[in-house]
């Protein structure tokens, strides 16, 4: 896809999310999202990576408005979604954006059958006729590789990979425009991870899905994503097409992260030099404020001019 032809589905500008807890002297503020801007284009898979606690899940939750962002604006299909919550806006969001959760066990109601779980969204979606709902549900279950027989069973009767398929069916059944997949395979065995990744890939092609893929396994993210954003302590520090990011990592945090990805190659692993990231040492302080610079077409890195010069030499 050429950059000019792309249609942004989601536009996020200066998104901020601050959590405060405690009172008075004990008050703690966490800048879970610290002024991030990015767009997700129709049909792409947008990968979001970064270490635990850097704000990935919070970003996903802010987009579907499980949180009220502290600042910034978000537009979805051209419509602003960061304003005051109304019933109508909630409806717009649930109709168009679905989330797949990290833990396939905790995210499914144990007292509902698979059919009921997948059907629930359709009810809110306004499909009134039970027979029609049933048909849509069974069709969706078939798409994720589950049968009619599975429909009447309960989540605990399934393996991890099968449960994650149920979660995917539930997310997809309302035909959302955007899927936010929050670590959908992290809790699964490698062999089952592959089933789920292949499934998401097939569905993406078949249904023309746009996916925001949150994960911390960088091999999986690279394999699966069109573009990748790297987040460090609430801040997106680098954003580039997947291949480009892995070929020319520029920000010292991205470089450290990539140097740490375990690879199934004993010869490489045994002689590998890992980089570590020290925010206090790995930057040039000039007093100039940092911002996102487009160092190559489509490749953005968060830096000041002096660092930009240095990064250019790395290219």
């Amino acid at each position: 896809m050429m950059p000019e032809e792309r249609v942004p589905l989601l536009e996020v500008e200066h998104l901020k999310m601050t959590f405060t807890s405690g009172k008075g002297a004990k008050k703690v503020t966490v800048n879970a999202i610290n002024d991030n801007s990015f767009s997700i284009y129709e049909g792409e898979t947008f990968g979001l990576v970064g270490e635990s606690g850097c704000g990935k899940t919070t970003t996903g939750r802010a987009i579907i408005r499980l949180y009220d962002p502290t600042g910034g604006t978000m537009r979805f299909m051209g419509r602003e979604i960061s304003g005051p919550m109304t019933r109508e806006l909630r409806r717009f969001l649930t109709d168009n954006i679905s989330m797949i959760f990290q833990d396939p066990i905790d995210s499914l109601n144990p007292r509902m059958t698979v059919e009921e779980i997948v059907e629930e969204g359709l009810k809110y979606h306004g499909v009134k006729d039970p027979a029609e709902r049933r048909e849509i549900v069974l069709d969706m279950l078939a798409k994720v590789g589950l049968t009619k027989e599975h429909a009447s069973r309960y989540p605990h009767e399934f393996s991890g990979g099968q449960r994650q398929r149920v979660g995917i069916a539930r997310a997809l059944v309302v035909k959302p425009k955007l899927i936010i997949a929050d670590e959908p395979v992290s809790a699964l065995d490698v062999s089952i991870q592959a089933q789920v990744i292949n499934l998401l890939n097939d569905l993406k092609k078949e249904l023309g899905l746009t996916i925001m893929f949150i994960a911390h396994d960088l091999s999986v993210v690279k394999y699966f994503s069109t573009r990748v954003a790297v987040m460090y302590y609430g801040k997106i520090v680098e954003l580039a097409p997947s291949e480009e990011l892995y070929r020319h990592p520029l920000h010292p945090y991205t470089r450290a992260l990539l140097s740490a990805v375990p690879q199934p190659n004993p010869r490489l692993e045994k002689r590998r030099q890992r980089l570590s990231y020290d925010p206090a040492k790995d930057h040039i302080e000039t007093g100039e404020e940092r911002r996102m610079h487009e160092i190559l077409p489509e490749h953005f890195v968060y830096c000041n001019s002096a660092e930009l010069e240095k990064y250019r030499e790395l290219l």
Partner: protein
Amino acid sequence: MDNETILSVNDLSISFKTLNGMVRAVRGVSFDLKRGETVAIVGESGSGKSVTIKAVMGILAGNAVIDSGSIMYGGRDLIKASEKDYQSIRGSKIGLIFQDPLSALNPIMKIGRQITEALRLSDPKISRADARKKAVELMESVGITDADRRFDQYPFQFSGGMRQRVVIAIALARDPEILICDEPTTALDVTVQARILDLINEIKQERKLSVIFITHDMGVVANVADRINVMYAGKIVEKGTADEIFLEPAHPYTQALLAAMPDLETSERLMSIPGTPPNMIFPPKGDAFAERNAHALEIDFEEEPPYFKISDTHYAATWALHPKAPKLEMPEVLRNRIARIKEEA
């Protein structure tokens, strides 16, 4: 005295009594551990990795039955060891780092004290100041920044990853001869994980420590392991050096496991393993992996394959290695990767 075997597990079989019947969790597992080496045990969830090492540590659940086998350590069979014998082994001779770091820490004792107590167990004469200094050093070496201040904090003030680092510091403080790591880095970020793997590798070399490393991440295995045991449904289906397992995998399960994981070069469709692992109350006869293996032979469903020798260090239990069996085609993803690895060398 390199090459000296310090732990030897022979034909170990373990079952669990449950309401539905006996779960055959471990079925004839054998492996050796030599001084200064790292042996990895890899395999799918439920394949019997943790049960195997719990038997070594003498901490099997109450409903466990050891059906057969021996675990030789320091000239005796640990299966016959009493709880009292074990008290002088656990921690001081054989250290264990668990999957779940929370259960390993005392929630109401300061982090620093938990480490100095461990230090004192192996060196009762150590002075307070020295113990503190050593503990802070250990904390720093496992990547806890600001260790001097954090020395006086409690576990709840630490994140999951940092707690796991504390658990590792405590295990190392006892200066054990064998360190068993049961998925010690699964919950950690890649950068922290990398630091901990480097740390374990370093200490291993410094102290001639022997390590048993359990994981299902093949990337991690590539990093730490000298030798690898691949487990499936309670059995070791293949064993070999790291190079042998990664570059010449022979068992269809090992191949499938490797092919299911993308690396940074992968662009082909991943090979997924259809189906689920067998119910171990009724372990299938023959090769337990047969029902998930598209290339299974008839005999795979009938008779358990013996170990076929591929080299002095490389064995696999699969009929695919029988001289009369058709040659097993490796999945494409894997063939490409292996070609790439060999080319780089």
